[in-house]
């Protein structure tokens, strides 16, 4: 089968690419569109490093075919900040030292942004279970959870 022509919206921008039917959305983002924020940690949906939103739904981009992005709206880590202005989550992650090597950080930011948009007042347990699909090997999750809870608190107080 020849390549598939995909029309999609990524972080609000209309983009097009050609991909092999077997290519995943993760492959397309990284290798076709130079959006290397999403990472392949496992390729099989176990680690969450490739997390993106698909029509506002949190998914693993390694479990979506490039072809399936046609007509859809994708959100990646590159779309979380607005120009120079960091999202509060990004700022808190830095303040709380909620990252060490940083490879899981894009996936975790996409995932926690999706959480706070769905549930602005999560308990610690709810945050942990929401993030169960985002593996981190460096931090033991402690500072990540603290950064998320702190951001949630700030966002609630601001609204």
């Amino acid at each position: 089968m020849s390549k598939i022509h995909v029309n999609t919206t990524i972080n609000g921008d209309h983009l097009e690419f050609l991909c092999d039917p077997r290519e995943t959305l993760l492959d397309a983002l990284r290798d076709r569109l130079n959006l290397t924020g999403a990472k392949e940690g496992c390729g099989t949906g176990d680690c969450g490093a490739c997390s993106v939103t698909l029509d506002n739904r949190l998914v693993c981009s390694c479990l979506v075919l490039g072809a399936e992005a046609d007509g859809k709206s994708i959100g990646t880590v590159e779309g979380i900040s607005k120009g120079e202005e960091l999202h509060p989550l990004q700022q808190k992650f830095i303040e709380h030292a909620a990252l060490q090597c940083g490879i899981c950080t894009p996936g975790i930011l996409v995932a926690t942004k999706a959480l706070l948009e769905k549930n602005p007042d999560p308990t610690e347990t709810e945050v942990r279970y929401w993030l169960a699909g985002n593996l981190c090997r460096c931090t033991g999750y402690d500072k990540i959870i603290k950064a998320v809870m702190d951001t949630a608190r700030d966002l609630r107080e601001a609204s």
Partner: protein
Amino acid sequence: MALDNQKNRDFKIVGTRPDRPDGIDKVTGRAKFGADAYAPGMLHAAILRSPHAHAKILKIDTEKAEKLAGVKAVVTRKDFSKMVTGENWNVLENVMAGDVALYDGHAIAAIAATSTLIARDAIKLIQVEYEVLPHVTDVDQAMKKNAPVIRVGAADSSVPKGLHPNIVRYHESGHGDLKNGFDAADLILEDTFKTEATHQGYIEPHACLAQLGGDGKGELWCCTQGHFHVQKTCAALLDLETSALRVTASEIGGGFGGKTAIFIEPVALALSRKTNRPVKLVMSRSEVFRATGPTSSTSMDIKIGMKKDGTITAGSGIFRLQGGAFPGAPMEFTAMCAFAPYNLENVKQIGYDVLSNRPKQAAYRAPGSPMAAFAVESVIDELCNKLELDPIEVRLKNASKQGTKASFGPTWDRIGLVECLEAAQKHPHYSAPIKKGQGRGISSGFWFNHGGETAVTLALSEDGTAALSVGTPDIGGSRASMCQMAAEELGISYDKVRTTIADTATLGYNEVSHGSRVTYASGLATIKAARDAVKKLCARAAKKWDIDEEAVIWEDGFAKPSGPNAGNFDPIPLAQLTKSMGKTGGPIVGHFEATPEGAGVSFATHLVDAEVDQETGRAHVVRYTVIQDAGKAIHPSYVEGQYQGGAAQGIGWALNEEYIYGKDGRLQNSGFLDYRIPVASDLPMIDTVIIEVPNPGHPYGVRGVGETSICPPLAAIANAVSNAAGVRLKELPMSPVRILEAIKNKT
């Protein structure tokens, strides 16, 4: 002694928690890791791997594969150096099999093609003829008389005569009289403990982008803990001149010791040389588990004698470790760390390094030490239970201290074990009531830490900012600490220093980022380089004031006359001196190169509460406290991060992580689904206490912290789980199946 003679120095930046300099890059996805590099005309590589645990390679037929459209080159062992010896030979034999496939996943051949899909399709077309041989994966089985031989003649001179050829190295250390020691004990406990191999589990698979021309000159981008080591080794494996290959370290998505070893870079370079195009090679997760460097698996016999008052009268241990199909299992570290926290008159350690049909082991934070602690601390815990003694009191009573003789020979310098134990004793965790169904465990842990070759350059810009170049990849946030130390010494603000991990063409040789050496050694070098720059800055001021250099001091970022006798001059800020440096003598650059010898050892004490479901055997950790000696915490948040990270890895290792081999010698769980590392919902918050007993070998007293944090957890958790379950667990991981079986077999 390197420690500054400046008690109660009022640090302005060191010890605070500024934002890390690479933070914005990492939270925006801008940071470039190993697989994030692209080059025009780039090819993609894939590696064919052995499906057999042990097999002779009779024939490799690549004809069909090479005909596939898009395939540009194939490499096998013939495309690498025929002149390597020693450890380089071991590395090459592991990177690309020669005559024998030594483990499931061993690289046999590699292909470069115009897309990753084509490369992966092509390797399936390579036809290999194997003669399958008997295999062995268990360490005890591999030592037995009839075990399949992995390699003839690999044993070194340390190995006693008459042992199986799979036993390749031997260690013996200790002192005193064991027999007398055991005779003096009121209670002797003796037991065998086993741990399975685990993997560092970094989320980023190995990845590189290689460019190598026929003229032997090349560029390599890779995620690594040591790009100088990569440069040196790749040069040897490909018959290149070392300096002709320039290696740049990308950001690294976790290493923990596993990325100090070399697996794919020589392959990418060989393919690039053959095709004259850049070649990108990224490992899949399954390849990472099958064919990089997991830990050793161990089998350990421990015997400890204790008096009723808690005095340990004797301790002995025999430690058998398999390190895969190559020598290098860190059995001597296991042997030396085992009794390190204890001041013993009579102690003996024996270690065996054993070959097996498994991948070549690599370091995983404090290689060998966690397993030793698991075995020894479990027996100590059992002795305390039986003699009804407090576990911290017993550890304090027998604690290693400055001036006592270590179990492995030297006399201890200033160490912080007692401080850790006392802090544990006072900690609210230790006095909190233990809930029903739960158990508490404590453990000590020890790691040597390391210095290593280090070279650093600190260049000042005309605007008064500083560019620090270090050669140690940042695996834990060390760039922030480097900036802090440089800024502190120069007396400028933190944000005026930028730290870069320079490539191999820019600095002198730097040893790998391992041994918890970066904040210690690159930090020491940074401080010295900054002091070198300061000296030069003072010289410029002296020249301007026309006074002796000795009469100028540096204070808070200003050159000042040392006293009223030196002269009455206004202080000159750094930026003013650098602004004119071109005219006053040239660029001002501080540098420092050395192999520092004073890395301070680090001790830790961990407290764990665990709960066991008696009906299903499932255990989980409900409370965790890490207490560890950091010497001097440059950036406390990142020190805490190391403590928490090591503890989390220890929890996984203790409860769920293991390499599972089938009867066919193949790895059954080469993915994150069945190689179970802790997820966010598995863990509690991990409390930390930073103890600071200064290391005499560093200007500020820094001790490495990255590794010690993984030394106590296996034991602390085993003790907690054993106490909760009411039965001693002696094999890791303590999976629900094992715990339930132990509960059922309890007499």
